[in-house]
């Protein structure tokens, strides 16, 4: 018969309790009921097995065989003359079966220490060889501890942050403490537990309140327990130094033993070989900043699952837990957040509890609970893979992290990290836009920093998916998207903002005359673009006007823009990011927004900027006629002489055989010349051009009556 027990003493926070839950599941599965299952429900851990409450307690009191945990490579481990040996000696005197394996391992450790002729713990160089030798002789059951505490790669030794620096935390040796607690709780001369062992267990398992022990250290796993600055977090009503907590926590930490496939994996980055452990990132938690990145040691994301899982599944999950992002291993918290979306979803993980091992309390590393990240599929996360091609993102981070890197770059890169982190948690368009904006800012920086250009190419091609993911149907985005899509042979919109070679994907070494974008108002810049494109058409003798876009705006955007109702800065910011995105393959969905009335000046002048081909198709222009842009029109607009510009346009339309509405040429009052010019630059969707043409073609329309306020009287 199976029982489901609620282990209220084992919440996901603090880390010690999380590990305790893993420890209990592992021990019950390995020593009592191989079919035991465990899972998280809210803030408690549930255990399903043949053991009821009483049987579970009896198991720990009477049968539990402590896993052989020994760190003969550490000072203070009990293997060296100056060490505290009380626990070791006590255990070695015991004949009980439950300690046989433990004693065997202690003996192997002692033999190795003797074989190496060590009087104190081996120094850095000797340690690797000592550990390597130890790993060749330890019984299988003792390897998990070694593999969890240290990782022997091909050439050096690495310590997963979870177990401090190789099974100790500062001066606290975990294994010796473990053994001391074992002898405190389990009788060594007879079967069963000591009085303390009996008394404290229900507290550790079920969170029952019992009087506290005064001594005992739990170290980095429970910051609340050591009275550091975080002393108030974590444990609610629990005991801070229950020796069972320590034992079960260490038993749980063994789940983190690095699998061979992980230990042997090639590639750089030390911390990445450990399950669910990543380099820190300042972004996202709201607690840490870029400045925190150096002293902070690592971050762990511990999975919380809500279906009954066997220990073997948990172990496998931890073996898989060195998450991969796209095709490479995740390197930092941000990367990890991206991988969360994939592994978490694949494995049905509910959430990840984030922990930072932050150095905030002198030398002791503390596991600080950060936020909890809910797992959900977030397709926008995949967009980040684009940034990662060729390791661009990491190269950018390296560039910004360098000692000499300027403050401005750090700032924008920090902004990108934050934006990306937000994106990993929620892929809404606003988050995607924020990423695009920061990428744009970074490119503005790079475009003017030849030094950085040598170290970093432009961002890899961003797929057109970015358009759809960022589309919030808002005016600013739609307008920027239309502008970004402006294209003509050799004249992508991007070229006006950022000078780089599209084919080679390298920064231009020479000054590029197309790059006219400067720091300054959007309107000034768009006017400069309009001018430059027009001049290029003339210079290159392009047969068609270079003002078409892969994606055209609708008239509602235009009217709002011309009326000054769209945030110019936001458009500029979005545009800087969007020009780096590949052209849309199919247009964004149409919006159903009724446009506000359009200024007559726009209505009249816009056809002049539309390709003749389209005007022919719209039957606006006879197929044998063309409608070139009058040379003098842009200078007029630049000078704010809208009326003069309109006049030029009016004449041009006439001489191209366009039948214009009755009346005289309208007079322009609003908008000003620059805004009007900017509006003319925005490509329109084919259907919208049609509406425009039809409107103009209504001969009898009183559209441009002299007295009119130059507003179109009705919506198009």
């Amino acid at each position, binding site marked *: 018969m199976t029982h489901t027990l609620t282990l209220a003493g084992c919440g996901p926070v603090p880390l010690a309790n999380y590990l305790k839950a893993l420890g209990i599941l592992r021990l019950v599965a390995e020593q009592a009921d191989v079919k035991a299952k465990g899972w998280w429900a809210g803030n408690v851990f549930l255990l399903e097995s043949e053991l009821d409450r009483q049987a579970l307690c009896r198991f720990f009191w009477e049968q539990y065989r402590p896993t052989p945990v020994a760190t003969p490579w550490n000072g203070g481990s009990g293997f060296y003359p100056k060490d505290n040996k009380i626990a070791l000696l006590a255990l070695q005197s015991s004949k009980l079966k439950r300690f046989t394996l433990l004693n065997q391992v202690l003996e192997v450790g002692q033999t190795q220490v003797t074989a190496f002729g060590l009087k104190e713990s081996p120094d850095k160089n000797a340690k690797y060889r000592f550990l390597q030798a130890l790993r*060749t002789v330890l019984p*299988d059951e003792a390897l998990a501890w070694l593999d969890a505490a240290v990782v022997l790669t*091909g050439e050096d030794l690495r310590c997963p942050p979870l177990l401090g620096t190789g099974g100790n935390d500062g001066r606290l040796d975990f294994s010796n403490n473990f053994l001391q607690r074992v002898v405190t709780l389990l009788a060594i001369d007879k079967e069963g537990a000591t009085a303390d062992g009996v008394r404290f267990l229900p507290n550790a398992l079920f969170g029952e309140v019992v009087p506290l022990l005064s001594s005992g250290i739990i170290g980095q796993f429970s910051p609340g327990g050591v009275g550091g600055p975080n002393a108030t977090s974590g444990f609610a009503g629990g005991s801070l130094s229950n020796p069972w907590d320590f034992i079960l926590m260490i038993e749980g930490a063994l789940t983190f033993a690095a699998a061979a*496939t992980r230990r042997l*994996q090639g590639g750089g980055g030390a911390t990445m070989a450990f399950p669910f452990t990543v380099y820190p990132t300042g972004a996202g938690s709201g607690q840490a900043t870029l400045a925190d990145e150096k002293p902070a040691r690592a971050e762990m994301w511990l999975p919380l699952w809500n*279906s009954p899982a066997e220990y*073997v599944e948990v172990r496998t999950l931890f073996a898989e837990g060195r998450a991969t992002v796209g095709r490479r291993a995740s390197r930092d918290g941000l990367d990890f957040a991206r991988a969360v979306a994939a592994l978490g979803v694949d494995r049905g993980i509910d959430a990840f509890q984030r922990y930072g091992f932050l150095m905030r309390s002198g030398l002791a590393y503390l596991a600080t609970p950060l936020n909890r990240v809910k797992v959900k599929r977030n397709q926008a996360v995949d967009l980040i893979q684009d940034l990662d091609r060729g390791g661009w993102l990491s190269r950018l981070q390296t560039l910004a992290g360098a000692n000499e890197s300027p403050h401005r770059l750090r700032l924008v890169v920090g902004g990108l990290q934050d934006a990306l982190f937000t994106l990993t948690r929620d892929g809404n368009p606003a988050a995607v836009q924020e990423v695009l904006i920061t990428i744009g800012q970074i490119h503005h920086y790079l475009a003017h920093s030849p030094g950085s250009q040598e170290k970093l190419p432009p961002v890899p091609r961003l797929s057109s998916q970015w358009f759809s993911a960022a589309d919030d149907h808002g005016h600013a985005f739609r307008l920027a998207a239309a502008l970004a899509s402006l294209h003509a042979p050799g004249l992508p919109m991007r070229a006006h903002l950022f000078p780089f070679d599209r084919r080679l994907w390298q920064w231009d070494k020479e000054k590029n005359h197309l790059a006219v974008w400067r720091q300054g108002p959007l309107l000034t810049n768009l006017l400069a673009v309009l001018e430059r494109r027009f001049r290029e058409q003339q210079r290159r003798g392009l047969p068609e006007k270079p003002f078409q876009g892969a994606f055209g705006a609708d008239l509602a955007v235009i009217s709002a823009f011309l009326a000054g109702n769209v945030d110019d800065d936001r458009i500029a910011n979005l545009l800087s990011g969007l020009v780096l995105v590949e052209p849309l393959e199919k247009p964004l969905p149409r919006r159903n927004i009724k446009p506000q009335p359009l200024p007559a000046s726009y209505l009249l002048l816009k056809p002049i900027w539309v390709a003749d081909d389209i005007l022919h198709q719209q039957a606006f222009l006879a197929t044998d006629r063309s409608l070139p842009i009058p040379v003098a029109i842009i200078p007029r607009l630049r000078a704010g002489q809208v009326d003069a510009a309109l006049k030029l346009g009016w004449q041009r339309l006439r001489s191209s055989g366009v039948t214009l509405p009755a009346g005289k040429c309208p007079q322009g009052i609003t908008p000003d010349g620059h805004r009007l010019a900017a509006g003319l630059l925005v490509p329109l969707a084919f259907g919208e051009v049609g509406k425009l043409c039809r409107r103009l073609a209504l001969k009898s329309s009183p559209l441009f009556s002299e007295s009119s306020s130059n507003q179109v009287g009705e919506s198009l």
Partner: protein
Amino acid sequence: MNYHEFFRILSGGQNPYPYQARLVAEPWPETLEIPTGLGKTMAVVGAWLYRRLSNDPTTPRRLVYCLPMRVLVEQVQRTINTWLAAAEPLFRQQGLESPTVHLLMGGETQDGWAAQPESVAILVGTQDMLLSRALMRGYGMNRSLWPVHFALLHNDAFWVFDEVQLMGTGLTTSVQLEAFRRTFALGATSRSLWVSATMHQEQFATVDFRPYATSMVTLGLAADDRQHPRVNKLLNAAKRLIQATSSLTPDTGRQNAKVYLDALAAEVAKAHRPGSTTLVILNRVDRAQGLFDRLAKLCSSVERLLIHGRFRPAERKAVEAKLRQAPLPTGRILVATQAVEAGVDMTSATLFTELAPCSSMVQRFGRCNRYGEEECGQIFWLDITENEDLAQPYDLATLDTARQLLMGLTDVDTGSLPSLPPEERVGGSVLRRQDLLDLFNTDPDLSGFDVDVAPFIRDQDQPGVMVFWRGFDKEPDNNEPAPQRQELCPVSLGQIKQFLKKTERLAWNWDFLAGDWQKTDSRQLMPGMVLLLRAADGGYDQQQGFLARVTAAVPLVPMIDLTANGGYDSDNRSVENDFVLLSRHLDQTVAAMTSLNESLALSPTERKALLLACRWHDGGKGHAVMQNTLTRCLPDGDERKNVIWGKSSCHGKHQRPHFRHEVASALLWLAQGPQSELQDLVAYLILAHHGKVRLSLRALPLEKEPPQAGQRFARGIWQGDILPAMALGDGVTTQEAVLSLAIMEMGEGSDGPSWTARSQGLLRQQGPFRLAWLEALVRVADWRGSAHESTGEQS
């Protein structure tokens, strides 16, 4: 026929030495300790052949001959081939299939042996190639075949490790693997035999082999062997040891050892005797190349040859062919690296050797006056002092020990050499049980990561990479054919990094997942990689081998077999050209399995599981994505679009990238297959039948996602996909099935335990060796089923 007669036929008339005969008369030993030159290979291969001929049940059907170095491999293969040719009629007389020999080296594409689990075969390979396969990470091969090679190398395999003193860490790994084969279940019995001139029993007392080490049986020379005239002559062939005048010191070693090499060249030229062979063994390839250059000027009339590990087989074969001919009247000078230490069956009248570890020195001495053909061989040893750099690849302390030993010696005939202590190993890792179990899982690597098993294979001198040159202009085309063995040159990581230092030089690595050539920079280099280089970038000289400084274009090796790279999603073996109904393909596969069952002694449960797996293995091909691909070349309205195909002549990519029909097959089986205790095993065999999805069921990165948020997906299968009702042949039918991927998630879900729980349970229950064995058999049956169809054969 008794063994003496058999042996005479094999050897062209020679009688076996007494120890060679004992190898047949007595049960197989674990170790064979025989001095060099006394026919160890012949002893082992002869005994194995004779025992196979006699149907000895203690003799596995695959002889896996593992050599520490690449240069030996082809020579051993050639020798074995002549014996096999002699033995063939004897096998035929008994109605037995004659054994075949296969090479396992980098770039070796003949994996025909892997498709023949029931055939008697000899596999010869280097420790890199064989141990990496035994560790489920075969170097230089299609990764989807890893489990098959793993299976066939652990089941029904007789491992012979030759020259174990040169194996380093590989020896420990081989011992641990043997221990694991004795503890985990096997599909068919396997055993190991370690062969060397000097054996140290303590090397076998590894953590898991210790219980067996005490009862190990060793076979060595007995008194009757020593009295044998030929043995006597070999053991006592005179060799005088003299210290050479030249020595490598910080002074003489400057500027690429210019002074040293100049002096040495002169000394060699002086010592060389016309009509005889002079062998010069240097510890480093660059020095060997440097000396070879200098000798050209000093002894232009003498035939000069260079041999080391950095040649393409094409060029190396030419050198080896010359070595087999008698020297010209002017004689021959062979400059070599330690590559000739072992196994190369050659002798010299004069030997120069740089100081090396004791065991290597003993091996090198063995290459002088090997057969007692000279009255007295002359051996000059070259001292190396004071500098760790110059001592590479050895360390100074080891060389100091060796120098001490040599200082006291003047005569070094095989019989009078003092016995040597085992060398202390530096570095290297011991393969533990859990490591092996972890390595069994190949899935995570599919995302493009390579697990580096090198620490279990070699200690120093990491296995390097393979390079080959092609003539293209800027970037290689994706249709550039896969490399052939003839053109692959082994290069150390250091050398290739050196090569790539020149900015315009580039290297490309085939990306199985993306299906294209990826530029690889120095930081991404991993042991075992196969790199494509541009011929115009140089880096190779036909006489001198790999040489980073060569800038002249590399001559290309003529191509014979032009097959493009097998992309990750393609599985050439089972891509066929005819339209074959699904039910027919399943029938064929079941038929192939039935006949495999007859050749192999499988248990009734195993048979049942295998047959069920074969019957259901391609049920997932009923998936619309698969059928779409299979019929896409047919015109609309073609009637053939209305039935379910197992194979077709249409090609192209699936609409869903990374689509794997076997996932659908396994899900279908779990949902509709008959319930029994074999359910998980059969599901595993179905899922693993292309080697692409095995223990772990996960979506691949960059996979196309289903439109609905929260909809599970993995390997192109989406939660809720529908398989039509199908006939799987032999009366087995399925209902329309709505696929559920609940088992990919952790914990017990709506469809029972997760795939992880099931597959880990299987691994625990079956052990890695038997599970892989069964897995391999299903794949072989599938290949054969497909082959039947393509050749139009009826089963």
